[in-house]
């Protein structure tokens, strides 16, 4: 169905503020189908969305100036999304009402989950869905927005700082490691890494701080630094249970803003391929072995770190083999809501692990990135709710 564009207002001055033409505005009644609220001084309409890089963008809407959304110019808002039509829909701000018209798109235009066709309102706070893109209609005080943007910048800085600390992939040697990290818009407290303890032992770990925001990110960085710089006093870093017990002593939630964290920490002996590991409050790491359908979970059950002083921590051991792939990931990888509205649990995600190396989605540089793309495609549109951290380590 093709819908004509929203016609320009036949008399835009009807909505002009009194200082422009007060008398005419007062004596002419608005058309019956559009209810126009009195403009609020300093309040502005925006469309808020996430761009290809994951950054939050805010497009200011101006009265009686149409904005077209499509996959290519001359649309003013262009999304290179295969589910968006060349010219998909058109928006127009009339007074304080935002109207949308579908322009005959293949996949439809939706407002708060309901398909719309012509000149339909997008309420304040309403969500417009175009292909995979989610755009939120914001109507807010411009000064408040400036403060909010400052917070967004702080979050972006925190996110960049965390990313700058992440290790380089290991592309040669007995253990090849690649990862994919995608911080959520709110920035969580994921931190992961790997390094050699000595010529025979390699450490891998992933921690996830409770909550989101700069505080969680910075707490994650503090934990990260303690592990990568091996700065926990009196600890044998080859002993996972000692490391976790010491972290629990060093990072009590009482003196760290009420934050705790979960962690998986493993030490691989490159001579024997034995791995000793301990998890605290975290789901297992999983091992996929060539020729075996079942994944091997590597987990111990320990209290989250920081919740209670003096807790004991247990560790376990497993025998790995050449060709094994070890998957270490945060809960943001699987705690998604799908397009169908299903809240995933880890069991929904596990079948995606251990796939043949030649089964990667086109364009994915690694299996970790492949998994991100698959999960991203299955999740409902919009940014993921939590950080996505996936580490894949393969024994050569």
């Amino acid at each position: 169905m093709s819908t004509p564009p929203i016609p320009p207002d036949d008399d835009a001055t009807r909505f002009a503020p009194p200082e422009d033409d007060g008398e005419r505005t007062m004596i002419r009644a608005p058309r019956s189908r559009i209810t126009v609220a009195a403009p609020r001084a300093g309040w502005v309409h925006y469309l808020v969305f996430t761009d290809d890089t994951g950054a939050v963008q805010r497009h200011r809407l101006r009265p009686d100036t149409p904005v077209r959304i499509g996959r290519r110019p001359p649309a003013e808002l262009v999304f290179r999304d295969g589910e968006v039509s060349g010219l998909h829909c058109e928006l127009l701000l009339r007074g304080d009402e935002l109207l949308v018209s579908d322009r005959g798109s293949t996949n439809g235009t939706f407002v708060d989950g309901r398909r719309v066709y012509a000149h339909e309102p997008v309420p304040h706070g309403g969500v417009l869905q175009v292909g995979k893109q989610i755009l939120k209609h914001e109507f807010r005080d411009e000064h408040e927005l400036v403060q909010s943007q400052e917070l967004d910048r702080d979050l972006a800085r925190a996110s960049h700082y965390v990313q700058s600390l992440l290790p380089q992939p290991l592309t040669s040697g007995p253990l090849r490691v690649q990862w994919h990290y995608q911080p959520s818009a709110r920035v969580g407290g994921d931190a992961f890494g790997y390094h050699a303890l000595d010529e025979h032992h390699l450490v891998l770990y992933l921690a996830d701080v409770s909550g989101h925001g700069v505080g969680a990110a910075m707490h994650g960085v503090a934990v990260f630094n303690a592990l990568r710089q091996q700065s926990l006093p009196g600890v044998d870093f080859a002993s996972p249970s000692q490391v976790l017990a010491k972290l629990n002593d060093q990072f009590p939630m009482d003196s760290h803003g009420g934050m705790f964290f979960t962690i998986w920490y493993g030490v691989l002996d490159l001579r024997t391929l034995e791995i000793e590991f301990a998890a605290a409050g975290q789901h297992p790491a999983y091992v996929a072995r060539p020729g075996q359908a079942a994944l091997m979970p590597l987990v111990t059950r320990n209290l989250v770190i920081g919740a209670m002083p003096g807790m004991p921590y247990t560790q376990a051991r497993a025998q790995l083999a050449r060709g094994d792939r070890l998957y270490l990931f945060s809960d943001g990888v699987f705690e998604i809501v799908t397009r169908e509205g299903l809240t995933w649990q880890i069991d929904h995600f596990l079948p995606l692990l251990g796939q043949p190396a030649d089964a990667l989605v086109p364009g994915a540089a690694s299996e970790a990135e492949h998994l991100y793309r698959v999960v991203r495609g299955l999740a409902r549109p919009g940014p993921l709710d939590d950080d996505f951290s996936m580490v894949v380590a393969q024994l050569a």
Partner: protein
Amino acid sequence: MDMSVEELAGGAVCVALQGRLDTVGVDQVEARFKDAVLGTDRDAAVDLGAVSFLASMGVRLIITTARAQKARGRNLVLFGAKAQVQSTLQMVALDQIIPVLPDREQATARLAH
């Protein structure tokens, strides 16, 4: 996220939570929840039977409240969690510091001791 408060046989306060105990849910309920548990000098039981999802912020709320209870010599127990929430409680090993019980009867009995 919603909650209701009642009294168990024996006098302990029972707080029933309903909905997703995630960041948004905790924001909605935290002040009322802490007031219900800590605003009275009694033991407390938390009914998780209608909690559909427990995220880390929900775990944090439970831990901080349980610790505040313990600091003043009072107990807090959890009960009634459905499979998914029970699985999360198991994973974070919360039962190592807070009793996690299957139903109201066992929660009541535990607090009566």
